[in-house]
């Protein structure tokens, strides 16, 4: 399968990542190389094999992800969080207008 520049452009938009024309050309080529390489996994026989999302989901009771109460704890450093915001107002994050001229 071959990845076109249009596919790169579409994928980048899904990821909300702006790319220059040069980048689109470069990534299309590199993606073809990389996906060409990863295609080797199609030769692996995975019939009746279940997927592993995390190695901590199997391996005995004491070694799997432990359960705990989902309890909210007050975070004391709110000022420090707001202090990192690119723009803020009245202890809130300020963003540009959401309804733009372009399609969303």
């Amino acid at each position, binding site marked *: 399968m071959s*990845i076109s520049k249009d*596919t*790169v452009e579409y*994928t*980048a*938009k*899904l*990821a*909300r*990542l*702006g*790319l220059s024309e040069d*980048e689109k050309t470069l*990534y299309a080529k*590199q*993606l073809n*190389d*990389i*996906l060409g*390489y*990863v*295609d*080797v*996994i*199609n030769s*692996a026989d*995975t019939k009746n*094999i*279940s*997927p*592993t*999302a*995390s*190695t*901590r989901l199997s*391996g005995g009771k*004491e*070694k799997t*992800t*432990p359960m*705990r109460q989902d309890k909210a704890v007050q*975070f004391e*450093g709110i000022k*420090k*969080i707001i*202090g*990192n*915001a*690119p*723009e803020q107002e009245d202890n809130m*994050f300020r*963003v*540009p*207008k*959401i*309804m*733009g*001229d*372009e399609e*969303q």
Partner: protein
Amino acid sequence: MNLHKLTAHELADKLRSKEIGCVELINDIYSRIDAVEGKIGAFNCLTKDAALKKAKELDDKGLNGELSGVPIALKDNICTDGVKTTCSSKILKDFIPPYNATVVELLQNEGMIPVGKTNLDEFAMGSSTENSAFKTTKNPWDIQRVPGGSSGGSAAAVAADEASLALGSDTGGSIRQPASFCGVVGLKPTYGRVSRYGLIAFASSLDQIGPLTKDVTDAALLMNVIAKYDRRDSTSANVDTPDYKKSLIKDVKGLKIAVPKELMGEGIEENTKKAILEALKVYEKMGATFKEVSLPSLKFALATYYIIAPAEASSNLSRYDGVHYGHRSEKQNDLLNMYLSTRSEGFGPEVKRRIIIGTYALSSGYYDAYYLKAQKVRTLIKQDFDDTFKDFDVVMSPTCPSPAFKIGEKVSDPLSMYLSDIATIPINLAGIPAISIPCGFDNDLPVGLQIMGKAFDEETLFRAAFSYEQETQWNKRKPEL
């Protein structure tokens, strides 16, 4: 006195016996940094004032834990309250975390002294630190060469005696590969052994924090500090941590070693292979046995990784949107364009490449063919290791196919850069622990031996690594700077 040359446990002994003081030690470390950092470039930032203040406090009030007073470097993707944490990315250039990572809290409770934050490939994606938005760290053994990555700053800092030990993170080899290239010890603990709360996420099913040190003893002592259950990391294992110091015994009689032929064949340089075979003979001499085995699914490991890791990364990195923290583009007239230009300006080429690969692999129509398939192959890889550990205690291989490569050599060919992680990646996929220790030199460049173990059996790794280190003492050789 050249205190900076000593290991952490040697320094800890001297501090405890009051032969030296903490302020004296920290001053010595910073004068070493002043002398060599211009050449090496291991750090993104130094925290000298805070370090000296802490040192004075320890001198006045007394030491806390076993490694109290010892200077440590932290990879710059580990959150430090009030100290910039950048991931070597433009998008987090001015980010000041509002809290400490759990490992940082644990170091502080121990009384260890952070000296600075070390350079890395942007968001830990890379094998050379060349993907850092700020600078490329140099290998202390040859400054024309890369230190490895992504924890290249941490490995170079330890090798150049700019810190007594360091923390790194390892998603596909990012602790072990730079440890191998810089001639130091690097451990990727079992997935779930060390809390990742406050580690800036790259690929969450693979990431793990671990030590980079001058010898095996230091790695064991640092693991005693950081390996603790943490309710704030949902993947943290609620298991007892053994005292790893007890594993530091020279005894491998009867130890059964498996050597996968898939990691000793094509792509592995001859001199590297030779060094590993020599190491195996040393083990044999000490009473262990080794046997070549086959883990057939390993041939799929790199491909599997380059689907799973970018897929998880594309999801994790969606948080950098210019809203809550980090860079926000000036070019903005609405929200969508703010996202597009913020991320375009903030991320470097490798991070963009992986976001695109990951987004593509997760996108409608390709999810089953790539992501789900890769997760199934991951099961095969894990099964191959499980099967091997039924008959063997440890698995050994080279950590890297070759010694450190030259700066610029692989930068324009991402696939050849990825191939340098071929022996380290399977371990993250399987979730098991592995340690890299120095096992010789190829033209004055360090070669690393990788020892892999069963999940939650770091003890056997430490025993095997310690025995070899005692027998050979490769770790005693130092780069000339």
